[in-house]
């Protein structure tokens, strides 16, 4: 595959992994006539259907696969949180005066941060500044010693990660955190699981309802995989897949939950330039077109500067700066603490 993927004229080649990876019917049919490239990746197709999902639950029939039936009505009833996220004007996530200490270590000290709905909010800072801890607070792994967390205007207290996931918070880990002994599809299905309603008995007795629901979930999951261009890996086990593919699987799992708040912890680490670009586009479209609010931690400045609407800079657990990329980049404090001399 890589032969083609890395040949000089790749702009006019199908994307590497997806092109080569024996595309599913849908993918191949989806290739844009002008540039023989999956439309969703092709800059010359602004009208391409948005990424991921649309408010209102069931997945839209994606043009990349006109033959695929729409998701079953059992999907996510009553509109996915994404809707509310987009509608209510209140902030998607707001941290006020959050302080976290581990033993002696002050990981966070009185950090304020507000993510406006449908925006990409970058968090940068030196290693050990507290970025991941911030995430851990936002998704319930760490209970702050002080400070409050609000989601869409409601204050959250002592909610555990799985509760928050139920409320539409999704997160990717700084590592990969894939389920290595189940297939890629199942990895994503676990993410989509929060849209299932059938209970234990239904499962135990294997009632038709369970089967129906399962089918719906699978369609959801496949749609997400397809949009990330890794549908062809659905039946594989993550362990031996190329690294970027695994990164995408992790992302797909988060997206399958159709979150309205997405926390991405160094999603680009270890990715090549091309994958990074795609990731950037993806993140932007998520925010711009689904009103998904994204909180992004990255050390790749070019990416951060490109996709973020707003950036918060942490150092030693304190917020030392925040503002638009432009403002932040020229902030001397940031330069000193984080960027060092060579910027971007």
């Amino acid at each position, binding site marked *: *595959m*890589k*032969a*083609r993927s890395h040949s000089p004229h790749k702009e006019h080649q199908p994307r590497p*992994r997806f092109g*080569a*990876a*024996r595309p599913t019917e849908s993918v191949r049919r989806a290739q844009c006539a002008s540039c023989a490239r999956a439309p969703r990746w092709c800059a010359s197709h602004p009208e391409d259907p948005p990424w991921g999902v649309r408010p209102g639950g069931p997945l839209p029939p994606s043009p990349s696969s006109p033959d695929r039936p729409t998701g079953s009505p059992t999907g996510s009833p009553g509109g996915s949180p994404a809707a509310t996220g987009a509608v209510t004007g209140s902030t998607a996530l707001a941290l006020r005066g959050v302080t976290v200490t581990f033993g002696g270590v002050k990981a966070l000290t009185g950090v304020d941060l507000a993510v406006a709905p449908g925006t990409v909010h970058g968090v940068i800072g030196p290693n050990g500044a507290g970025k991941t801890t911030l995430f851990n607070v936002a*998704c319930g*792994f760490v209970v702050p010693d002080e400070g409050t967390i609000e989601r869409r205007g409601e204050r959250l207290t002592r909610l555990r*990660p*799985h509760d928050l*996931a*139920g409320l539409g918070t*999704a997160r990717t*880990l*700084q*590592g*990969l*955190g*894939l*389920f*290595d*002994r*189940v297939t890629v*599809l*199942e990895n994503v*299905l*676990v*993410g989509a*699981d*929060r849209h*299932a309603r059938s209970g*234990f008995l*239904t*499962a*135990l*007795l*294997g009632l*038709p309802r*369970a*089967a129906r*629901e399962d*089918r719906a979930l*699978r*369609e959801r999951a496949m749609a997400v995989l397809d949009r990330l261009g890794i549908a*062809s*890996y*659905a*039946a*594989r*086990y*993550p*362990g*031996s*897949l190329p690294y970027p593919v695994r990164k995408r699987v992790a992302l797909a*799992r988060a997206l399958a939950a159709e979150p309205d708040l997405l926390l991405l912890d*160094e999603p680009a*680490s*270890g990715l090549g330039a091309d994958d990074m670009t795609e990731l950037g586009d993806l993140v932007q479209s998520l925010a711009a077109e689904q009103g998904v609010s994204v909180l992004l931690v990255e050390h790749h400045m070019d990416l951060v500067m490109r996709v973020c609407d707003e950036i918060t800079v942490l150092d030693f657990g304190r917020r030392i700066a925040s503002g638009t990329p432009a403002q932040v980049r020229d902030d001397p404090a940031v330069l000193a603490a984080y960027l060092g001399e060579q910027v971007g």
Partner: protein
Amino acid sequence: MAALRTRASAWWAGSILGRHLLVALLGLVVVVVVLESSSDFRNLQLASMAYLGIAAGGLTVLTGLNGQISLGHGALMAIGAYTTALLLDDREASTPLPLVVLAAVVVTLLVGIAVGAAAARLHGPYLAGATLALAVAVPGIALYFKEQLGGEQGLRVVLPDIPAWVLDLAYFVTGQDLTRSRYVAYLAWLTLVITFVLLANLARSRVGRRWRAVRDDEVAAELAGVHLGRARVSAFVVSAAAAGAAGAMMALTVRLAAPSGFTLTLSLTLLSAVVLGGLGSLAGALLGAALLTFLPQVVTDIGVDAGLSDIRAAELAPLVYGVVMVLVILLAPAGIVGTVRTALLKRRLRRSAAAQTRTAGTNPTAPGTPGTPTTDPATTTSKGSTT
């Protein structure tokens, strides 16, 4: 693994239950044929294979799908067995058999909730230690409450007379009278089939999916909205319930529930059966149960035929049994079923790879070909710090 794992490639429609029932039906036919064509002794042996199989099935779900190790399932079987014994204490015992079994399951299930909840936060050796203690503690209770539980002698189990309609049915179907031992064997195997269908349903459902997620990566699972505690406890309870059913069948087969019947050895052999057969696979569990049931006798017979005195032969039996255990682990680390399966996968992988390399420059690890079921983290190149 894969026996329970949902074939990811299959997003084809179709009732889960339907397929499992089909398999179950075939299974039942086989059972009838085998039981009818074998002696009373074989029937009883098969009955014990069945109850071991049921327990092993439950354990393989717990350990294989949810990654919780239990050295205490013998104790859970004991609870099922004692419940049965208490309900079937004399010929006039009025409770119908199905209710008895149900009661055994429910009681064990309740105990399972307690233990599972306590064990939910434990991992690896700590869980092993806790369940180990459970395995040795429970028989002691039976000793302590002599009056109610019969102490060392244990409780006799009186097998209620075979209902007339069953006799008639059996005769109608098979043309033979139904002996008591065969009756027990049928009960045990019927229970086994039912249990396995239910377990298979769960394993293939979202419940099973969440169990596997928790097994593979707790943090990621929690982030994906899986309630860790609930997942682990439910897995434990399910396998406890199976153990309860197994205990009930054991009581009916052995016609006694006594502490010395539920030593630590039982729990440990159960676990080994599961692993030797192939962790996570119901077929493997059954295979392991067969191993447990038949190996000792076979070995002893071989010994006797080889001219050893009965006593020497008996002493050798465990030796051979142990050696077999060690060898299986060394030669078939994924258990018998698992190893066979991976062998097949490898073949397919190699073939497809060959196909790939012929058409130059395509992805060597092409889609559609499943990777090896488990990839050793050490060998997979991976980035970012472990979280």
